[in-house]
């Protein structure tokens, strides 16, 4: 049986960082806001307690290097996972 091929017009990529030096819960939410303002970012999750940052972005628009810069600009150190 032939399997129909589904094509999506937008393919979202997901990437993760770990930030070990969050020092308050609000800091995590400011990083979340900062990341969601980066071009092409569709969805961001930042967790204070685990330090996990998950970014869903549109591959055609977003520049993945900008994510780490956005985190650094807020004064935190992103680590690739």
């Amino acid at each position: 049986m032939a399997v129909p091929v589904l094509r999506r017009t937008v393919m979202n990529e997901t990437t993760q960082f770990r930030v070990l030096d969050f020092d308050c819960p609000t800091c995590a939410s400011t990083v979340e806001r900062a990341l969601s303002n980066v071009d092409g970012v569709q969805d961001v999750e930042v967790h204070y307690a685990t330090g996990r940052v998950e970014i869903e972005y549109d591959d055609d628009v977003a520049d993945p290097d900008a994510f780490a810069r956005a985190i650094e600009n807020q004064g935190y150190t992103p680590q690739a996972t």
Partner: protein
Amino acid sequence: MNKQTITQYYRNNRKAIVTASSGLLYGGGWSLGHLTSFDAASAGILILAAIIGGYDIAKTAYYEVTNRTLGIKTLVTLAAIGAIVIGEYWEAAAVVFLFSLGSYLEGRTMRKTRTALQELLEMTPDTATVHRDGELQEVPARDVEEGEVVVVKPGGKIPVDGTVIDGESAVNQAPVTGESAPVHKADGDDVYAGTVNQEGALEIQTTGAGSDTTLERIIRRVERAQEAQSPTESLIDRFTKYYTPAVIVLAIGAYVVTQNAILSLTLLVIGCPGALVIGPPVSIVSAIGNAARSGVLMKGGEHLERAGKIDLVAFDKTGTLTKGETTVADIEGIGVADDEVLSLAATAEKKSEHHLADAIVDAAREQPTAATDGGTTAPLADGTDAGRQSVPDPDDFDVVAGKGVIAHANGHEIVVGNRALLADCDIDVPSRIADYVRERERHGETVVYVALDGDIIGAIALRDGLRESAPGVVAALQNAGIETVMLTGDNERTAAAVAEEVGIDEYRAELLPEDKQTVIEAYQADGHVVAMVGDGINDAPSLATADIGIAMGAAGTDTAIEAADMALMADDLEHIPYAVTLSKATRWNVLENVGLAVLTVTILLAGVLTSYVTLAAGMLVHEASVLAVILNGMRLLRY
């Protein structure tokens, strides 16, 4: 040191450097002001200390304000600026320095919580030795393809999930399942990435590599569990939405009434509910991380807080308290040879999928060959081991749920089942068989009757050995003040014997699967918080009914995890007392942290309103309380 390494060093240690500089300037400024009369110089240095220490804080505060969130950094910035404006340079520098120091220490300690799971991932080796292109190649473990064969030397770590296709060894599975004893692995057994091959070389056919291994999946689940908000956390979150703005209103109100700027600035500083917000998540993340390292997967803070209230643990019997490996222990024929009884029973049960049926059919196949006329010595065509007896197929058979089977073979009717089935078929039990059955059941065995054409020809006693860990687990729970109950479909006498052997408080026998749910509901109606332990597949409904469902053997199947609130990776009970007491400790820990935070704020508030506490002292106590709740929560990492 060249410029690049200096820049790198500064970047990595920025917080420490900033805090230290601000602290030194603060100390210098303070000494200058107190020991000499260079007041202007002292003020200048103190302002510099506030600016250096406060730059990053103010920057984040700016982001907080532009993002319309109200965080502690905004409050601290306002307080520091306010203090400078009214000429209290010492207070400004002290607040900034103490806050930087506090955040630096908080970041440092939280790092330990955040890396607890990372250590688990580092168990997996980076490279794998794989059969590729007709030779052995060393490749990155992530690049091993499904189906490729990996070779692991004795003492080596297993780099992929897979199935053993050659070799035999003992494997230490502690990193994945938390089992303390190594597990014997041979052909056909599954092994997990991150576990350690201790004895012989193994050839493993890969089923998953890289991020598609059991360990990685567990860690992803554990992280999601850590991030899920517990009811306490959501409550605090809702509370702080109103609390922080209320503090600002209070600070303004206090200034209007008292005209005391220091008082209202101090209110701003102590008003941030730092310890209240940080405490509970740290407790829960630490507890879930700790549990993961022992092979216990907690679904989330909500489940953990509920598990902390458990006061009754119900165990399914077969496969939970017992090993789930039923074997024929004894056969009693009446007027018929014992092996004839077994052969006939095996024929009747051959197509049944019940675990008792499997045991009877297996026993019939293992019988010495010469004994019966029912079998042949030739190996079976369906691939059964040579030298085993064949068991003939029945002509037809009916399974009577919860009772047994009625089958026909060679024109005879064979009934194999429990007393209820005999009653249904109007078959009388001779007193010799009745005595035999009573005796075997008193030893914890399950007995099935065998009848041929309406007359009992014998009975078969089956035994399912207890897990070695079962009595110890039950005793440990009892020591922790928790009631224990066994639920089983077995008859009263067998259940009583097993219950006594395990030392369990109570048992409920002759339960149909749906009865187990009713029993759990009845305990809940009596005010118990009930945990149910089972395999997660057959027991899924009762696991769901219980307040906390605990599934065993979850490393192998995702279904088990789905049905449960808590899952034990190992197919063993060993960690249940630990999981239950850890949950209790976590619940207390969360309460301690909330209590400590509320108490600190209350005392500070009273101190501020009576002018005993000023800016710097308020900041010091506030930061100390935050560190205290973090350190208290982190105790659970070492529980």
